[in-house]
């Protein structure tokens, strides 16, 4: 018998994240390294713990090995309680058959048993690809106050960018009357953050109904939420203020990392928990020069570093220049190499005097340049030149130049 939990969180972590290219070749998007020692999923998980949510189900499907291993027993997030904690929920076989998760709603539907063990009043649905810090309790209070069936967190975006988001049109009190998915002419600037709180009784009803519909995509945004609105359920938009970024693309992932170096950005890393590698403190040599950067444990820095982020165990050789780049765990940048506006994935080796990426003349004009990405466990040969916007596959060896 499980003790009752008022709130259960379900974290959608099964997507491939194909827009992150080689970075998600062998791991799910929520497991992508972020911010020098974290993985993206640390943010929603830490938010849950800091909001007092003790039961978290993580829905995994695409390349779950790294993610499952990382989550483990949940101890780094204090999610290893005796009767609650974190569980990775993969698709499974049952008497009535075996199915992959066909959509976000279907993933939750297939795990109704998991949720019902805790007999919750509310279920929080989260995504594993957003960087933000949020107290879900405040949103839950709002949900209760409005006596809502569903509350969706929204963030105010600039009108010019509103057409990239799912926009919620509401009355003055926050009651939603219309969903506008990526509208050409947005009526408001309330963008959905992909964070939902449902009253469980209602959600269960709509999930079950949706499951029966043959033409449904079994997706929250496309099917379940519109169905609820159509049926006249009380649905509210909860305005969130603070830092929030979808890191689903290479550009946004790079930007969110760079935001950590920007004193004007309000995101701090306090109370964000993660699994810590056992490495000694990092060493900075006499030849090194580091400014405006983040450096994790286990690094050895002999070169120059500006506006960059080093994950644990990275080696930066002598006379190396790293600028506006992200170097993931265990990567080695050999002597004389030059890394500009690039993401170097785990355990990749960049050879001597190689050049990766370019420093754009005009940062704002994204048509002319882009972030260079080198996949994990790759070897870039000495003196090779990798141009801007190039993406190099993981587990390869690059001997010449790549444009």
């Amino acid at each position, binding site marked *: 018998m499980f003790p009752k939990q008022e709130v259960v969180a379900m974290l959608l972590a099964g997507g491939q994240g194909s827009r992150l290219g080689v970075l998600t070749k062998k791991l799910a998007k929520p497991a992508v390294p972020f*911010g*020098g*020692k974290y993985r993206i999923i640390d943010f929603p998980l830490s938010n849950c713990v800091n909001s007092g949510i003790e039961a978290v189900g993580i829905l995994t499907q695409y390349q779950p090995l790294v993610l499952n291993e990382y989550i483990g027993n949940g101890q*780094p997030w204090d999610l290893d309680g005796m009767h609650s904690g974190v569980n990775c929920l993969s698709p499974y076989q049952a008497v009535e058959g075996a199915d992959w998760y066909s959509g976000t709603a279907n993933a939750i539907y297939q795990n109704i048993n998991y949720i019902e063990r805790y007999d919750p009043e509310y279920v929080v649905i989260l995504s594993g690809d957003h960087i933000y810090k949020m107290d879900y309790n405040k949103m839950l209070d709002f949900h209760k106050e409005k006596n809502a069936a569903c509350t969706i967190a929204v963030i105010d975006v600039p009108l010019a960018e509103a057409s990239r988001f799912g926009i919620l049109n509401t009355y003055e009190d926050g009651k939603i009357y219309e969903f506008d998915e990526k509208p050409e002419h947005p009526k408001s600037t309330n963008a959905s953050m992909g964070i939902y709180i449902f009253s469980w009784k209602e959600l269960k009803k709509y999930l079950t109904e949706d499951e029966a519909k043959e033409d449904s995509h079994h997706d929250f945004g496309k099917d379940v939420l519109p169905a609820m609105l159509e049926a006249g359920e009380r649905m509210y938009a909860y305005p969130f203020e603070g830092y929030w970024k979808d890191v689903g693309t290479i550009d946004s992932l790079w930007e969110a990392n760079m935001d950590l*170096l920007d004193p004007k950005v309000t995101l*701090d*890393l*306090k*109370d*964000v*928990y*993660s699994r*810590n590698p*056992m*490495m*000694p*403190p*990092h*060493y*900075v*040599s*006499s030849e*090194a*020069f*580091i*400014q*405006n*950067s*983040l*450096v*994790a*444990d286990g690094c*050895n820095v002999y070169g120059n*570093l500006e506006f960059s*982020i*080093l*994950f644990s165990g990275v080696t930066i050789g002598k006379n190396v220049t790293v600028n506006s780049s992200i170097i993931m765990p265990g990567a080695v940048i050999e002597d004389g190499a030059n890394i500009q506006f690039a993401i170097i994935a785990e355990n990749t080796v960049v050879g001597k005097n190689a050049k990766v990426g370019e420093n754009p003349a005009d940062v704002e004009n994204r048509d002319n340049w882009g972030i260079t990405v080198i996949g994990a466990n790759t070897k870039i040969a000495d003196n090779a030149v990798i141009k801007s916007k190039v993406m190099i596959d993981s587990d390869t060896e690059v001997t010449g130049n790549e444009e």
Partner: protein
Amino acid sequence: MRSNDVLGFVFADTLSEKIPELAASRTTASVPIGGKYRLIDFVLSNMSNSGINNVGVVAKSNYLSLMDHVGSGSAYDLSKRRSNLTILPPYGGKTFSSYVETIYNMHGYIESCREEYVLIAPGNIATNIDYTEVFDFHSKNNSDITLIYKKGVVHSGYERPITLEADADGKVKQIFIKPETCHEEVNQVYGTVLIRKSLLMEEIRKSLSLNQLDIKRLIQNSIEKFNVYAFENKGYCAAISSINDYFKFNMDLMKKEVRDELFNPKHPIYTKVRDDAPSKYGLTSNVKNSIIAQGCVIEGEVENCVLSKGVYIGEGAKVSNCIVMQDTKIGCNTNLNYVIIDKDVTIKDGRSLMGFDSYPIYIAKKSVV
């Protein structure tokens, strides 16, 4: 001899009287060192990596920080169904100045453990050693007592250790207690001893009944009665028995070969983890030849320093040859040279503090300068 047949027995207060400043409010074993570690991390990690499953840590006084740091032993993988870490505070409220009495005081614990052998280790040693080699050496030589030694010169002004002379096979011929310093390398014994548990307790009981409480004499006399062998620790090894030793060890970490050896990823040194963010270097930072733990924010100049977790260095600060422990704040436009700064210290803007190579200044925990 199998590793799980060896009990680890660590003294947390080794030579605490020699580092009175650092050990004022803590045990020797819980002195912060190397940016993110405490001294005891080395011996506990070595024991765990060598397959020892059961470790007792003898604490005499001020052991709150020790208990806080090692906790259940889970950081060292010593808190599982088949592994265990026990802190042993004084039994019956009695503390003893001699090792003979201290070990006897713990006879209940030692004899209740199911291991046949015991590896006694001091809490002031920073080294990365595979004890399984010592176990094999002990078995191969049919040894009764094996002492681990390190070759080195004992400089004047430093604590004079026990030294030994051994033959080519490692059989100990002579043991010297506090020999005069000389410029030659000698075989120094810091106190790591492998012995059969029953033999240890038998000898301790005999000594007590003869009112012979000096463990050094006990070891010295043992070479006449038993097979005593010496195992050389060929790796880097620092015994912290003065503030100068402490300073030198921290500075040794700037050497790549020392770091590579001590922090070998194949047998890592574990420690209690704190959730610190990666360290942040500001727009005016300039760091040279230093060891920096996570959670630091650096806006000033840092050279030849070891910074622990969560240290803040203000803009315009010049910090050289310093060891700064966790969560200390060093204000703007300060100038510090050869200073050991304990944890939670605040150095206000514009202050200057100068020590010297052979005499680093020490600033106590929670001070405000």
